[in-house]
């Protein structure tokens, strides 16, 4: 009998999943809360509340940097990636399926309280788009670009702006992993000079720009800028669809905690990365969509109770993103809660003997308030 109180290492837990003297009566057939449909394009309302599987190779290819940390740990533990199909994601998928790509790109802003599943919704949409063959520009957390930057260099391209080589190179690496074939196909339309000696000629594949950025870390931010510019200009031709997925888009219009050498604060538009990303999020291009998430969790100088678009984006951000389609993400509905609970039971994640009872389930629902993050944290030690 495993002790309730002892904190088991997640790996050990996975290994010991078969050791349970309790006869786990999880005789629910897998069909109830699982669905075998692993193509997001075919998800409909009947799949709502169910979990679908993403093969692990696909996870590595599509999500080099997008998934929430705890979800990544869960994938490691359970050895599978199961994502729940929920209404907000289905809504966005429906809009994407029906959107006219000749019109300017539509912006969707996913918002909701803490821990309700905004990032997972975004990942679901990203998976759909990558399955459909879109070029996915996934910025996992824009807040990372406005805080905790050790190295800030003055940009060689524009004296007023500041470069962030480390963040830019990390992002370029992940971008390369997820969009290999596009980088080969898309060709540059202009000659770009990197410093005095190096340059990228016109007509070279975009891959070279990325390699340049990774090799010469100092010019990584400019490489990012070039990539974004090229992609934006070429998306309207129709050879590929572009999805701009930004998590924590409110970072682009807030404040930063960075300061220049003379200790004066840096405003976001002085950062090259932020400046270029802002250009991507405007709707002056067509042939794709922009799906963004608001996040209070990593945000700077925002109260923890703020979750609505105006509160988090501020006046500037709202005016920049307006008109957008707001997509609220609520807590689990009773059906979704059942399905998540059933999944934990089935994977033997809930080891406590009382957790299997109806009372235990009601207690979990009450304690977590049907909030996905709270449920995940509560189920951890059980």
């Amino acid at each position, binding site marked *: 009998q495993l002790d309730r109180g002892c904190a088991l290492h997640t790996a050990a837990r996975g290994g010991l999943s078969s050791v349970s003297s309790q006869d786990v009566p999880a005789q629910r057939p897998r069909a109830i809360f699982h669905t075998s449909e692993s193509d997001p394009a075919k998800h409909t309302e009947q799949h709502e509340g169910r979990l679908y599987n993403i093969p692990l190779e696909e996870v590595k290819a599509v999500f080099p940097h997008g998934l929430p940390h705890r979800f990544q740990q869960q994938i490691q533990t359970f050895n599978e990636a199961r994502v729940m199909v929920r209404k907000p994601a289905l809504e966005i998928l429906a809009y994407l399926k029906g*959107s006219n790509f000749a019109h300017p790109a539509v912006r969707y802003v996913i918002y909701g309280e803490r821990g309700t599943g905004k990032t997972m919704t975004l990942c679901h949409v990203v998976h759909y788009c990558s399955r459909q063959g879109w070029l996915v520009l996934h910025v996992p957390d824009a807040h990372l670009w406005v805080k905790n930057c050790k190295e800030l260099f003055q940009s060689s391209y524009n004296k007023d702006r500041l470069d962030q080589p480390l963040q830019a190179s990390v992002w370029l690496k992940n971008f390369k992993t997820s969009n290999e074939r596009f980088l080969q196909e898309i060709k540059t339309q202009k000659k770009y000079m990197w410093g005095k000696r190096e340059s990228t000629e016109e007509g070279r594949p975009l891959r070279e720009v990325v390699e340049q950025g990774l090799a010469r870390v100092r010019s990584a931010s400019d490489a990012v800028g070039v990539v974004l510019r090229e992609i934006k200009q070429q998306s309207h031709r129709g050879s590929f669809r572009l999805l701009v997925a930004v998590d924590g888009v409110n970072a682009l219009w807030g404040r930063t905690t960075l300061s220049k050498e003379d200790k004066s604060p840096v405003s976001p538009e002085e950062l090259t990365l932020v400046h270029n990303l802002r250009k991507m999020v405007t709707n002056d291009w067509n042939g794709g969509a922009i799906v963004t998430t608001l996040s209070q969790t990593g945000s700077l100088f925002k109260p923890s109770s703020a979750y609505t678009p105006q509160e988090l984006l501020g006046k500037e951000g709202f005016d920049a993103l307006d008109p957008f*389609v707001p997509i609220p993400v609520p807590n689990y509905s009773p059906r979704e809660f059942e399905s998540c609970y059933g999944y934990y039971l089935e994977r033997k994640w809930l080891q406590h003997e009382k957790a299997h009872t109806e009372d235990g389930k009601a207690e979990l629902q009450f304690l977590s308030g049907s909030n996905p993050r709270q449920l995940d944290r509560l189920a951890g030690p059980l």
Partner: protein
Amino acid sequence: MHRVGLLVCLCRARTRFQPGIFPAQSSTAALRDRAREPCGSSRGRTGPAGLREGGATAFAHSGPGPSRPPSRRAGPREERGGAGMAARCCQAGLSCGALLSQAVLSQAVLSRAAGGAPATPHWGRAAFSSAPAVSGREGPQPREGSVRRRGRTPQFVRSAAPPRTERMAVDQDWSSVYPTAAAFKPASVPLPIRMGYPVKRGVPPPKEGNLELIKIPNFLHLTPPAIKKHCAALKDFCTEWPSALDSDEKCEQHFPIEIETVDYVSSGTSIRNPKARVVTLRVKLSNLNLDDHAKKKFIKLVGERYCQKTDVLTITTDRCPLRRQNYDYGMHLLTVLYHESWKTEKWESEKSEEDMEEYIWENSRSQKNALDTLLRIKASENVSNVTEEELLASEVVKNYRNSVTALKNEGETESNMSQYKESVKKLLNIQA
């Protein structure tokens, strides 16, 4: 309590040297000394220890005949015992095992303190007569010697006077219990109040002997019936209310400006009070003739003095020494504000978006964005010659405008957000 302790030590010291030979005078003198300190200042308004001390010494003093010479007779042991115990209990603050119940004691003490007749003059006499006897031979013992007396039951048990609250009728005239502002008297207030920090796993202390309740100001003298009586008394000095003004709306219609002044009376040699010069002027802006620009400018000029919810402007003036001057100044302020808000200065044209009180969609960023997007949509569909006016007049744009204005002015609610979502979907022609 440290005073008592000190005297206890002193008395103990004396005992050691001269057991049994303890001058009565000195003990009563000690008692009298202690009586003087708390008693003089705190008739009826003392803390618990002070009360008891004061009371005890009051007994000791004002029992029948303070002039009665302290007799050294060794009274009957019970008498001595009982009174001595009482005295000891008083003096030592009931640190002894309460041979006499605290309630009995406090009631007796309090009834004394409240100025009522002593419950039993017999008690007072007994206390006084036996106190010296007690002090005669066992002087120090009253203070320290409760230990020795604890085993013996008092043969003289005085019955405690019930508090006055038990004799109060439910429909009594409260204004006679508390005719003026007075301290809280637990025996006179028939309410089961508790106040103070509770002991661990206990409840707040009761009202008997509760210093916290006595310290704070109370309004027991200002109950509605009492105020009714005040009004009835003041009525003789008032004129009749005009019969034509029988509703609030009529009052507001005929007299939109309300002036509030306060008069102060106090017992003292002077009738002046500097607070009497304050004048408060209240007026609703809807009663003033202001157009849109004038109203916004007026509100900006007065700042905090205007309440959005009730639309009332409140001007409080106290800068002049006389009430009439303050009233004139208040009226002057109102006139100046009114006239100034109707004027338009040259620099008012530089009013920017941050200065606006509410969100106006026209010429805003949102309008620009929407028009740009629509123009691009039309261009992609190869529909040309669509002017901005047409776009602005179209239904979808009007809908969008309303939703954005509501969102910005009223804040974000569920309904506002869903309305905005619907309007954007219609604007951008998104189909599910």
